[in-house]
């Protein structure tokens, strides 16, 4: 009888990640309260004026992404993306409790903006040109990078090139994600890519030997590694740059510039936000607020 303990380990990993991402491990990690501007003035007719007038903002974020946007057991969302949205809302004079959070999985991020279901999307949203055809981005506010996670005893896979050299090696990622697209150029055959709906399923398959590696943004992988009790490790360097942007309705330049100004004025809050959320995971480095792209 050699029942593996992979499933249990993966479940525990997921639970632990949830806990880590909630920042619930001590008083020193409580999420910072962002500054809320008092009665800010905006030019009439702008998005900012409308939102400030309404006193509320609808924000699309993920509810299942540890460290960035995750719904906790009390039904509140927590994470770095959530804190970023709070900073921006604060600049509009909107308090965190007046923000309406809308669950926005990867597949519908453009749709909710086009359909005016949200005012902005902060959801580990990689800036790219296809997406820019339908919406506009403010930011980037963070640059993630793709990496590879393997079992601790695996010495054969050392980086993305290993998949080119060894056509039998399989790698797992999530359907419809940017990392899944970017790994394809290293693959010798499309059959090497295994796709699931969630990264926890990939981690599970890595643990029970169904796949040889998992790939996605470093921050997500670090979460799995730090909770795996030495079962997983990261190999190779980050081989992509994934600039995370804030999705806003197409062509709203004034709103984009406002977001840039607000983030730049609140760099301290930005650092605190990181340390209280995604920065909780062992092995992460606190980022500097990156140079912003031109608003268009």
């Amino acid at each position, binding site marked *: 009888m050699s029942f*593996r303990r992979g499933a249990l380990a993966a479940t525990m990993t997921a639970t632990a990640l949830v806990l880590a991402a909630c920042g619930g491990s001590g008083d020193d990690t409580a999420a910072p309260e962002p500054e809320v501007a008092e009665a800010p003035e905006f030019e009439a007719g702008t998005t900012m004026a409308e939102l400030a007038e309404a006193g509320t903002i609808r924000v699309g974020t993920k509810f299942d992404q540890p460290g960035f946007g995750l719904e906790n057991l009390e039904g509140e969302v927590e994470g770095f993306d959530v804190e970023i949205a709070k900073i921006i809302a604060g600049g509009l004079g909107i308090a965190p409790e007046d923000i309406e959070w809308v669950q926005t999985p990867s597949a519908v991020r*453009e*749709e909710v903006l086009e359909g005016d279901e949200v005012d902005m999307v902060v959801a580990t949203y990689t800036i790219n040109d296809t*997406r820019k055809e339908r919406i506009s981005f403010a930011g980037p506010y963070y640059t993630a990078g793709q990496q590879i996670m393997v079992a601790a005893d695996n010495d054969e896979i050392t980086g993305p090139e290993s998949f080119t050299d060894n056509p039998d090696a399989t790698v797992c990622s999530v359907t419809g994600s940017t990392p899944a697209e970017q790994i394809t150029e290293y693959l010798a055959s499309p059959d090497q890519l295994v*796709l699931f709906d969630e990264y926890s399923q990939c981690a599970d398959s890595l643990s029970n030997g169904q796949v040889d590696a998992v790939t996605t943004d470093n921050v997500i992988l670090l979460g799995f590694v730090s909770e795996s009790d030495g079962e997983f490790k990261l190999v190779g360097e980050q081989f992509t740059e994934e600039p995370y942007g804030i999705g806003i309705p197409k062509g709203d330049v004034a709103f984009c510039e406002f977001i840039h100004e607000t983030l730049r004025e609140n760099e301290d809050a930005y650092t605190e936000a990181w340390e209280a959320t995604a920065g909780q995971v062992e092995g992460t480095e606190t980022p500097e607020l990156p140079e912003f792209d031109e608003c268009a």
Partner: protein
Amino acid sequence: MSPVLDNIDLFVDGFLTSLEIILWALAGTLPLGVLIAACRVSPIPPLRAFGTFWVTTFRNTPLTVVLVFCAFGLPELGINRSFFFFGVLGLVLYTSAFVCEAVRSGINSVPAGQAEAARSIGLNFTQGLRYVVLPQALRTVVPPLGSVVIAMMKNSAVVGAFGVGGDLWSTGQRLTSALGYETFPIFVGGVAVGYLIITLTAGALLQVLERRVAIAR
């Protein structure tokens, strides 16, 4: 339509992968379903109990649960095969329960006198089933079996979410969420059309089959 035409090669690949899943699943589930039906009508109580157990288990379990068991449960037991194998296996197990019940309804529609006549000319149970009862039963089950098979073809979309990837459904997911195309044209113009090509063709073939095997009673 142009988002579909721009990515027609992806859709063709997805179509072929879906077709491959469906054909393997058909090849597995039809014989298995008939076998389980034979168990359910057999004179041997343990076989009957086994047949009933099989149908009760797989007919009452959601397909996704069967697939989770195959894709994550079997590897836990040390059985490592490709996700394609596990996906087809899950679809075969699940559908076999429905095939079994359709076939059993056909067997029950054959008058008891036929089985008795077979017995009286010296055929044993297996021979009677094989040469007398099943040929008559299968004629009457073409329409309900057709529905089961077409449902299975559509269910093959679920397999794509269990590590198989590259089928029609996953192709649609990939185009809309990673590559940023609009949902409506991709799923209506590409994915739905792909499945319709498969299911409408199957429907037409079933019509032909039904006419071919029809007998005047």
